[in-house]
């Protein structure tokens, strides 16, 4: 990899102050360190967030669960608070990568990277979560803007994500057999404001499916989801799946997510 200057602050304020020039925050490193190894990513300065305990932790209360940005996926998956309040979120976290990756990879790192096949974006968008940064809050609808694109400004530091507790929720992931990323991942949430369905892995970034939301609003059943024929336009085409197959699998995963939410 290319050389860089390295900072390891112990609090968030020092972290944002250290973000100078061509810099990047280093969270768990499960995406960034790999990209750097392959010489696909390079910045003049890395600001390592790993020594900031205040950025880790899970708090439940007041109708939502708040997860610190540097909380590893394994902690979210194992958290009694998350399992009790939003079990689908714990399940999603437990399906990211593999066990070793889950011990290092973080919520903040995942959403800031906004890989089109990452799992967390589907949860944020379906649950109507709010991203907290060092300077403002950003609703999920505004956070994910495009392929690897987010609304974060340069140097803006994600500090936590607040997930409103839904009435019911389910997540189903169709794993890419090679990479184990989401070939398609569907998060279904029944909230006070209605049904929300967020899809990851299928297009250039996470999106809400109007067709599935309408069908499930009329009948919150697996059959209703399965019957939806999503438009193929915009669906990813790659070695592993054609747009037609992806579109079909969105409906299948949605129906299974609905079944999971009903089974709880």
């Amino acid at each position: 990899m290319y050389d860089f200057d390295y900072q390891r602050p112990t609090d968030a304020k020092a972290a944002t102050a250290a973000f100078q020039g061509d810099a990047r925050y280093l969270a768990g490193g499960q995406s960034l360190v790999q990209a750097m190894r392959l010489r696909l990513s390079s910045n003049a300065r890395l600001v390592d967030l790993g020594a900031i305990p205040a950025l880790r932790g899970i708090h439940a209360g007041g109708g939502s669960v708040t997860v610190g940005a540097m909380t590893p996926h394994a902690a979210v998956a194992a958290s009694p608070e998350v399992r009790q309040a939003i079990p689908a979120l714990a399940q999603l976290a437990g399906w990211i990568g593999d066990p070793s990756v889950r011990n290092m990879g973080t919520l903040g790192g995942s959403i800031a990277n906004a890989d089109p096949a990452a799992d967390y974006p589907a949860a944020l968008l379906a649950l109507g979560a709010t991203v907290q940064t060092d300077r403002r809050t950003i609703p999920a609808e505004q956070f994910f803007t495009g392929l690897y694109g987010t609304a974060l400004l340069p140097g803006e530091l994600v500090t936590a994500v607040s997930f409103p507790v839904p009435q019911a929720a389910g997540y189903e992931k169709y794993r890419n057999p090679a990479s184990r990323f989401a070939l398609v991942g569907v998060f279904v949430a029944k909230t006070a404001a209605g049904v929300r369905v967020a899809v990851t892995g299928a297009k250039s970034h996470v999106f809400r499916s109007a067709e599935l939301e309408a069908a499930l609003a009329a009948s919150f059943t697996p059959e209703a989801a399965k019957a939806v024929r999503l438009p193929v336009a915009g669906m990813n085409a790659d070695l592993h799946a054609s747009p037609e197959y992806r579109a079909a699998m969105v409906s299948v995963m949605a129906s299974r997510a609905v079944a999971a939410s009903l089974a709880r």
Partner: protein
Amino acid sequence: MTDLSQPPVSPIGQPLRRREDARFLTGAGQYTDDVVLPGQSYGVFVRSPYAHARIQSIDTSSAKAAPGVLAIFTGADLADAKVGGLPCGWLIHSQDGSPMKEPPHPVLAQGKVRHVGDQLALVVAETLLQAKDAAELVAVDYEELPAVVDVATAAGAASAVHDDVPGNVCYDWSHGDKAAVDAAFARATRVTKLEFANNRLIPNAIEPRAANAQYTRHDDSYTLWVSNQNPHVERLLMTAFVLGLPESRVRVIAPDVGGGFGSKIFLYPEETALVWASKRVGRPIKWTAERSESFLTDAHGRDHVTTAELAMNEQGDFLAMRVKTTANMGAYLSTFASSVPTILYATLLAGQYRTPAIHAQVTAVFTNTAPVDAYRGAGRPEATYVVERLVETAARDLGMSPVDIRRRNFITEFPYATPVGLTYDTGNYAAHLDRALELADVAGFAARRDKSKAAGKLRGLGYSCYIEACGLAPSNIAGALGARAGLFEAGEVRVHPTGTVTVFTGSHSHGQGHETTFAQVVAARLGIPVENVEIVHGDTGRVPFGMGTYGSRSLSVGGTAIVKAVDKVIAKGRKIAAHLLEAADSDIEFENGEFKVAGTDRKIPFGQVALTAYVPHNYPLDKLEPGLNENAFYDPTNFTYPAGSYVCEVEVDPETGRTRVDRFTAVDDFGNIVNPMIVQGQVHGGIAQGLGQAMLEGARYDPESGQLLTGSYMDYCMPRADDLPSYQVDHTVTPCTHNPLGVKGCGEAGAIGSPPAFINALTDALGVRDIAMPATPERVWRAVNR
């Protein structure tokens, strides 16, 4: 305290735990990348980003000035030094009698680059990071050329991979009796025909290729550490054919090797360049492939397209088989490449059956892709796929049970001379088929299928009755078929004065457990404890000669060489014992580790004879040299013919197309078995690779640009623990008739037999005639929704 009243239990047939494991489990293995030599420098290769391009110029000036750089070499430097090209070890002739095309295979590309990853410069620097940084400064001016990518359309394509091979055909070979086959097809009332590909695979041993080359001025010699399956072959090819050095000046050490599966047999450009450069740089040079580099440059496997036909009568007797195959050689001929789709393929098209007439025609083509060569099974998986897919499909065409059609056509009398050149020495195909049917609970399949159906799933059952030729090989037969080398094996048995034994074997262990199984063989034959036998392999400085490990040959050929050396030790021991016991040589028997005078209880243990050989005070010095150290070379008289019956049962989720292997049953006849635990492990690993081929894996290149699309584990689907079931494995035994151990070899069987079993099961589940490998969920889903 050993109970001397009981005869010792022979270690043959015992599942002894492996001696190798102590170091592997505690992190004390020594793999090539673990070696760091004093004064170590590091090598990085500059590689082509294009599939096909003319090299207009290479400017190394900025790179040479980069920090820490010791030297940079290009193809021009090697040409100036008269370094030769990499040789191909097997000469195939086309139907018109002309020899195969052998375009130059340069160590560093000259004039053109011919696949993405083709190396054209070696950068040597003090540290790896410095070498990498400098490699990026090497400026190459390429003129991009159209790439020839697809095996099916390479022959006759406008663009030539090699300028002196217009049309890209390496050879056009045939085997068998075309006239007899044509006549049989003309008469036949039933013909089953299939067209399919055998998908291209990337071996992906978990240890990437690595080398570390050191030149020593003191005696003008070289030492090469390399992750390789056959150090003596590596040395011979490199010194005699490429670098023009005497073999004795190069020591090749293949230490612990993290898997090979064929991909580490071949002489590669990297270690060759390192050895050559190490003298010029005057420092040892170390290179380890990054995984993405391995993807581009390790020899790939398989990559055939085939049209195959089976002619039958109405009762299902096989009358003839006709096969036409186009096989990919890749951009350059790798060491064994030409033999894989010919000698190792067409000669197995009889399978387990009495088909009287068989003909195969194979066209081998060059493409702008990585070289293609042997990968676990090497030609025999391709042949078995042809035969077992035809046979199962023929059964369906005729409305016959796939078991009955096989039984009807089994070879039952041995030795059996097939119409494709091989003579099977022995076998009992019905025995393993019967056992497989029982172990797989085929009788219960119908009920399981109904249960799956009630749950909305599809279930299918498929068979594969494979045979292979291994124990490579009788040298005279191999030579007649085009081999440029001998395929014997060598072993030296050194008895120490204190009665322990060190065996130097030309075989190489890279997972097969030879340190344990060979010790079992020697200990059994000498009647000494297994702990007293040490097996040494992998170092040309310690082992006099060998041809290495591949083709399931180590126990049958390497083991037999060792047995012959042991028998020479025993023969000499008899003479020593006769002298000590004051008897005639012919009155001495050797049993359970003791030399006895026949018909008496006068005896001497092996250990005492060993000590006497080295302290020859009471010794027939007038007739016999002191010492007890023998070697043997063994050239087998035939191939060996492991065979088996596999049954695969799958369950398909029609909503997604995802297929689960519900159970996989393998019953193999490997002849006698020395260590059943190790044999089963080989079968497990082979099945995983075969199911990987059938369900998950496939190397893909962009058809226009020739870029490798599956260039990492992100896109090339390796089988993981949750992709596979546990296996049900058993064996039957018909001992090999032509080696003293009666063994046939077992390393490749799992990968050979399993792909057609899976596809037969899947097509049964889906009710379709054929489906391509890998049968990805989308392919299955489309078949379900057709």
